[in-house]
């Protein structure tokens, strides 16, 4: 028993409520989860992205906050890795390298991150490392897919990084997917027109529609081991969640998490009233919601 539990105590009410539904923990937690928890939407766009990565081209993935850009990227990485397990022909394998854009400050560090992602020795100097990528089509049959998350958020100089990516994209068998919020990406690409020209497809993730959001929430509950999720999340409550979140998955999950905590207090399934009470908005916000 930890000091925290001794002094403050556990949330027994919430735990017993969750247990009664067959859950172990909060099913709507926001932290990134495995492939199973990803509910696909805009399937055509995702298929296009996959095709892009297998052809050695450059693509950009944009969208508003919380629409699931990073989740899509992680899903792509995980699925590519899974396919590599079964594919024995090396010329058909695509090796994904996932890089968190906020973690580097210059193109030099970005290059090092790519090499580290390939589990190679990155302690050499810059020229040697770049030579390794330059000779990629000659020395390796596999294709390389570099997926950079939150590219515009890094503190690096946009011109320098853009030029570096442009040179990388010209190497055959190397494909790049960059990802960032719509406005930031526009601003970033405006600085580097050469990179913007080379981008094959720009995909903008829209908020989920009603069907997909329902799929997502039910998938979460199903994965967490809920016995009768249709009773826990009433259609009424779902409609309210959708209205509240406007289809953005992140805010929907946040609202659902709040709602399930509130539902434990009042001991009822998640319905419209619970959702409304749990996610109280100030008077001002409620009235001028269309401005937001």
């Amino acid at each position: 028993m930890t000091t925290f539990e001794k002094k403050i105590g556990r949330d027994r009410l919430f735990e017993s409520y969750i247990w009664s539904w067959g859950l172990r923990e909060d099913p709507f937690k926001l932290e990134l989860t495995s492939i199973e928890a990803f509910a696909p939407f805009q399937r055509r766009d995702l298929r296009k992205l996959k095709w892009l990565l297998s052809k050695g081209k450059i693509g950009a993935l944009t969208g508003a906050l919380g629409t699931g850009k990073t989740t899509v990227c992680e899903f792509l990485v995980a699925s590519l890795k899974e396919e590599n397990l079964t594919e024995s022909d090396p010329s058909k394998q695509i090796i994904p390298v996932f890089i968190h854009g906020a973690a580097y400050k210059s193109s030099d560090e970005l290059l090092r991150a790519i090499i580290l992602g390939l589990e190679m020795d990155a302690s050499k100097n810059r020229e040697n490392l770049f030579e390794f990528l330059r000779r990629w089509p000659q020395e390796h049959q596999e294709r390389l897919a570099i997926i950079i998350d939150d590219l515009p958020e890094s503190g690096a100089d946009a011109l320098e990084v853009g030029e570096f990516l442009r040179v990388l994209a010209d190497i055959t068998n190397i494909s790049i997917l960059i990802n960032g919020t719509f406005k930031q990406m526009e601003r970033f690409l405006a600085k580097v027109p050469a990179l913007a020209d080379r981008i094959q497809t720009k995909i903008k993730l829209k908020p989920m529609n009603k069907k997909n959001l329902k799929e997502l929430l039910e998938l979460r509950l199903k994965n967490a081991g809920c016995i009768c999720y249709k009773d826990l999340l009433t259609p009424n409550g779902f409609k309210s969640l959708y209205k509240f979140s406007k289809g953005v998955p992140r805010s929907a999950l946040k609202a659902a998490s709040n709602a399930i905590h509130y539902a434990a207090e009042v001991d009822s399934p998640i319905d419209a009233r619970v959702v409304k009470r749990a996610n109280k908005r100030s008077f001002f916000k409620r009235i001028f919601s269309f401005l937001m």
Partner: protein
Amino acid sequence: MLVIVRKGEVVEQKEKLYKMKEACKILGVHPNTIRLWDKQGKIKVVRPQGGQRRIPESEINRLLRVPSAVAPPPPSTIPKDEALSSFLNYVFSYHRDDWELVRKAVIIRDNYTCQECGGKELLEVHHKNGTSRNDPDNLVTLCQKCYNLVHKRVRKMPAFKPSIKPEAPAPKPEKPTIKIQPPPVPEVAELPRHKILDDLKPTGLAQRTLFGDLLSAAAVLKSFTLGDLAARVHCPEAIAKTFCERMTACGYLVSKNGMFEIHVRLAR
């Protein structure tokens, strides 16, 4: 070799003659270089009717086989030690103008010893006949004292001949080394990731990256079973098994009845 046969008899036995252009291509030099060699007598050329230079095959073969036939002859003062002599040969053949290099080479040749008094400190390299020609025969190692002496003397006597005593080369003075006790060796070896992965010998890059994932998962879990590892990385257990087998073979994992324990630290 070109052989002209007429009516079953060998009439003439001519050597093949190359034109200037062909010879340049074979030798990899400029035509002017061949003309220069011809002037200096380093190469024999034939001038048949017309007066143009034709280079015989034997001459080209000679040049190709022995490249130093054109280069100056090897200096006589070079010692017989193979590595050293080849080094000196190289320096004096190609880098005569690089004074620093020549100086060092001469000092090495003279075994870090003054050839006049046998001193081993403050060494200088001296041109014997007063000119600045960097010939191996013309250069000698002297210590600062002897060097100053010689240069005063040189004004009186134009040619200086140092009296070199045949002396057994003294062993190099050993540097006083302070023995530092090595820091206590950690029980677990610390290795960078790529070295561990090199040892595992994965087939292809896809397996390499997968092994990388497995390695980082193993480093987090510390002690684990096969199932734990496979579940964490989301890969089939067969691959986790091969990974664990190779790791144990390299000594990075210790297996105890189904449980594995990592025995290596990942260097940052």
